[in-house]
């Protein structure tokens, strides 16, 4: 218990989390502090490239066997399964429409790369190692949840479905963040430690600092959304945003233990399962489920679940994984 609290305090008082808090507070106070859109996108490209590349290098170093394939498969199943649970819970506890509930469910099945990045950065700080291929698992978990949500909608016969819409599947699978994550993972894998030696003062050294600025921006965006839309979310929905990560996390933990992942790898699978998408899924929802209200899913994912995971969730997940896996 003490260990968890210490880990939580270390985590909450890290420059990364405090930067997020600064952004959140600035937005709530209506400061005009803002990060230009182009800069935010560039930072996110950097983080995706760096995390993917490092994952690939670590796979090149340690080699992979069937465990990679198993982990990928497990990730896909998790991502596809979690929306059903999320949807069922939302339909019971909240008054969200079928469409809004399915849209929210898709976000929780999919993953948030920046939560994954924050999680691996916390593991690094704590000196806990993890499987490099978890990056590939992250990429594999982005899309399946969207399909589950669309299937849920089509089954309930709600109108306006667009799942079979022209090019949507291609768009989801070739989403920029998936392509960059997988691509840089492969590059890291091919070039291995020599490749890393060439660019480590770019992908390793400034990584946490860049993450601070990116989290500052995430805080600004989350705070802005929270300020304008918090009133829109009813209490059960907000509670869902705090409890669903724990439910997803438990599934992730069980899967991680069953797969025999290291403690760090299991922690990351928990983080992935517990996190909610804020890039790929919202854009796909605007195309496929235009009637779903973006204020609900964006505020919940970015304004409730992300801060929870970033501050309390990650240390909790690490503690649980260290206790049970590895």
């Amino acid at each position: 218990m003490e260990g968890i609290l210490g880990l939580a305090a270390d985590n909450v008082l890290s420059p990364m989390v405090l930067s997020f808090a600064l952004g959140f507070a600035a937005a709530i106070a209506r400061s005009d502090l803002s990060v230009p859109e182009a800069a935010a996108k560039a930072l996110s490209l950097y983080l995706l490239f760096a995390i993917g590349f490092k994952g690939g290098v670590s796979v090149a170093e340690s080699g992979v066997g069937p465990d990679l394939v198993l982990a990928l498969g497990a990730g896909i199943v998790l991502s596809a399964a979690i929306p059903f649970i999320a949807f069922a819970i939302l339909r019971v506890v909240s008054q969200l429409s079928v469409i809004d509930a399915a849209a929210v469910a898709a976000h929780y099945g999919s993953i948030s790369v920046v939560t994954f990045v924050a999680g691996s950065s916390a593991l690094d700080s704590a000196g806990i190692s993890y499987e490099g291929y978890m990056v590939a698992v992250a990429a594999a978990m982005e899309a399946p949840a969207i399909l589950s949500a669309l299937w849920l909608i089509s089954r309930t016969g709600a109108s306006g479905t667009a799942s079979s819409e022209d090019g949507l599947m291609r768009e989801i699978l070739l989403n920029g963040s998936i392509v960059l994550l997988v691509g840089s993972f492969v590059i890291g894998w091919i070039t291995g430690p020599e490749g890393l030696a060439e660019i480590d003062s770019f992908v390793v050294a400034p990584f946490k600092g860049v993450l601070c600025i990116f989290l500052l921006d995430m805080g600004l965006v989350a705070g802005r959304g929270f300020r304008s839309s918090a009133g829109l979310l009813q209490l059960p929905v907000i509670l869902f945003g705090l409890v669903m990560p724990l439910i997803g996390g438990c599934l992730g933990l069980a899967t991680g233990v069953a797969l025999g992942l290291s403690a760090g790898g299991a922690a990351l699978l928990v983080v992935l399962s517990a996190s909610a998408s804020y890039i790929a899924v919202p854009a796909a929802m605007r195309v496929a489920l235009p009637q779903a209200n973006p204020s609900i899913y964006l505020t919940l994912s970015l304004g409730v679940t992300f801060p929870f995971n970033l501050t309390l969730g990650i240390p909790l997940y690490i503690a649980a994984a260290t206790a049970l896996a590895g």
Partner: protein
Amino acid sequence: MQTHDAKRVEIIIEAPMERRLKNALEEVGVTGYTVLPVLGGSGRSGRWTRDGQVSKAGGMVAVICILRPDRVQTLLDAAFKVLEQHIGVVSVSDCQVLRAERF
């Protein structure tokens, strides 16, 4: 200079729908348009701004299309099919153009 009557259609549409709108326009033979960035706005779904956003979901673009008056209905039909269930604004105004053979 000799000018000719034309129409200017301005479509403000969600960024994730941009590609679909462009495809729909090109399908009906509207191959001339220009896309302008949008910083933010307000509508029935509230105020928003692009600042710091990473996802395409929370943004819009403005598509401007200048064309012969007799093509406007075709364009509106095509655009409406894409826009129907989506947020967005379409407006049409009269204008004059040089070099009518281009439109």
